[in-house]
């Protein structure tokens, strides 16, 4: 899948065909790419965990092309502004994600973006060959505020939803 196709496929698979937040889009893309979705997309570790310039560009291009809708929302106690993406109903999407990946995305819907961010960061280190403990330590070192014991404890649960 090309980046554009992955973004469309993700949106199609989501409840309400919508993803709230650019960060969330990035983390879901990374988790799916790590879980065997056939795509050759480069992710680097940036401020908020694994990030792909190609995914960011794809979201922008799809918005420009009229294939997805970009909207602004305010969420949380502090009413932070964030961007949400929604698939236009009439747009056909090919290829699509497998049944197992769609099921995983449905399961991931209940986690907060920060929980996904920490889990994705931990997975990034594991994918780079670090053992569990070292990956955990690197995640905590990088995100001391977010990677609290409670949040980090969710990471195995989150990753357990991914198809192998």
């Amino acid at each position: 899948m090309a980046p554009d196709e992955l973004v469309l496929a993700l949106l199609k698979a989501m409840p309400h065909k919508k993803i709230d937040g650019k960060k969330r889009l990035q983390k879901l893309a990374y988790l799916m790419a790590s879980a065997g979705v056939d795509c050759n997309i480069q992710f680097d570790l940036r401020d908020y965990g694994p990030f792909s310039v190609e995914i960011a560009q794809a979201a922008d291009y799809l918005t420009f092309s009229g294939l997805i809708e970009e909207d602004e929302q305010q969420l949380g106690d502090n009413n932070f502004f964030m961007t949400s993406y929604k698939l236009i109903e009439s747009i056909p999407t090919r290829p699509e994600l497998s049944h197992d990946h769609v099921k995983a995305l449905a399961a991931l819907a209940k986690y907060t973006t920060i929980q996904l961010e920490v889990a994705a960061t931990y997975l990034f280190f594991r994918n780079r060959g670090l053992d569990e403990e070292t990956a955990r330590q690197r995640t905590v070192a990088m995100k001391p505020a977010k990677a609290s014991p409670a949040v980090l404890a969710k990471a195995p649960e989150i990753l357990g939803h991914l198809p192998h």
Partner: protein
Amino acid sequence: MDKDQRIRDPIHNLIAFSTKRPEDVMLWELVQTAPVQRLRRIKQLGFSEFVYPGATHTRFSHVLGAMQMARRMLDVFERNQQLPADDHPRRRLATLAAALLHDVGHGPYSHVFEEVSSKLELNQSHEAYTLEIIRKSRTAEILDKNNILDETALFFEQESGNDPYQTIISSQLDCDRLDFLMRDRYYTGVRSTAIDLEWLLDSLKISKICVDPIEGIYEYSFVVQKKGVSVVEEFVLSYMKMYQNIYFHKTTRGVQHMASDIIYKTVSEVDQQFNSINSHPLITFFRNKDNQALDNYMNLDDSSVLSLVKLIADANNHPANALANRYLNRDTYKCLDLPSSETGEIRREKASKFIEALRSENIAFFADRLPGKAYKQYDVMDRNFLKNIMVEADGEHEPLGRVSQLVQAIPAKPTRIYFDCSKDRDRAKSIRDKMG
């Protein structure tokens, strides 16, 4: 440093280093290192000089400015008792070092360099090089001697928001942004949207903001006191104007695309007849993973790009020869801005039809995709970035986007399409105009 040193600077007037202040002695020593001196050979605004001939200032002047800006911020926050007392002198020193060193990992014409690197699937970003330089080069010895190596590296290894000092180096109103906005405005000659820096700094507080109420996660962030809302609005306006007129200028972006195409084409199409080009340091760096170590990277600067383009322009049969000559003579790709004011079904339908029409007319084009997110100049492309600057009033925090009508009206980013020549662009424009 055997005597006091002073540097004249158009933004900060005087940047002074006193032998009586140990922090200044260390900072001066860092200024003399090869990684910092290399920044004299890398322009802050890359190809912007194609549009603004005065924009030739270097990253060297900017990092000195960012360091001075950090000093000013630290002085204000100390005066207003915004920083913790524990270990403050060391934390202050590490913050100043981080401000001075924050750009040492930049490659020549950074945006283009990283775009080509990304196309070639080279994984190391300029931030990664910055960290490697801090940890490994002569700078590491100086920082270690002053017991701040780990503290300084932490600014680049750790997500910001974990402590108050990090807000000075990485936040919506950090020393980097404040310096480059003022500096770039000065050197390009832009006259509008000045920032009242002293009032702005005095209006800032460092507070803990809740970013996840479910997990109880808090991060340190700058918060603007209510008295500072109008000056922050000026900052936002300045950022927007600079982005529209300078950082995302259509001609500058066209030149960036052209330079990227020249380098990428040369790297990826090997032709044995062009020995001098094949052995050029920039080409050998990109082609051979064994040549991508830090030492070779540090040998590259803006002259590497220009010398390569000159070689290609002189090589008549080279595949990128025509492009190289166009670059040297400022015959850039041509741009068509698409209106971003239409919303909903109208825009979507028009955009799809327009692209379809270009393809059926065999008009080659490419959309101006976002540059890599690592560049702060482009942060403002995400409207929410500035809208989420927090304002404090009566003990409560609210995003600037809710408080300020001016900031609510931040326009959408433009959408651009580039064509090889003005003839293709004019044909495309004609198609678009007929669509209504």
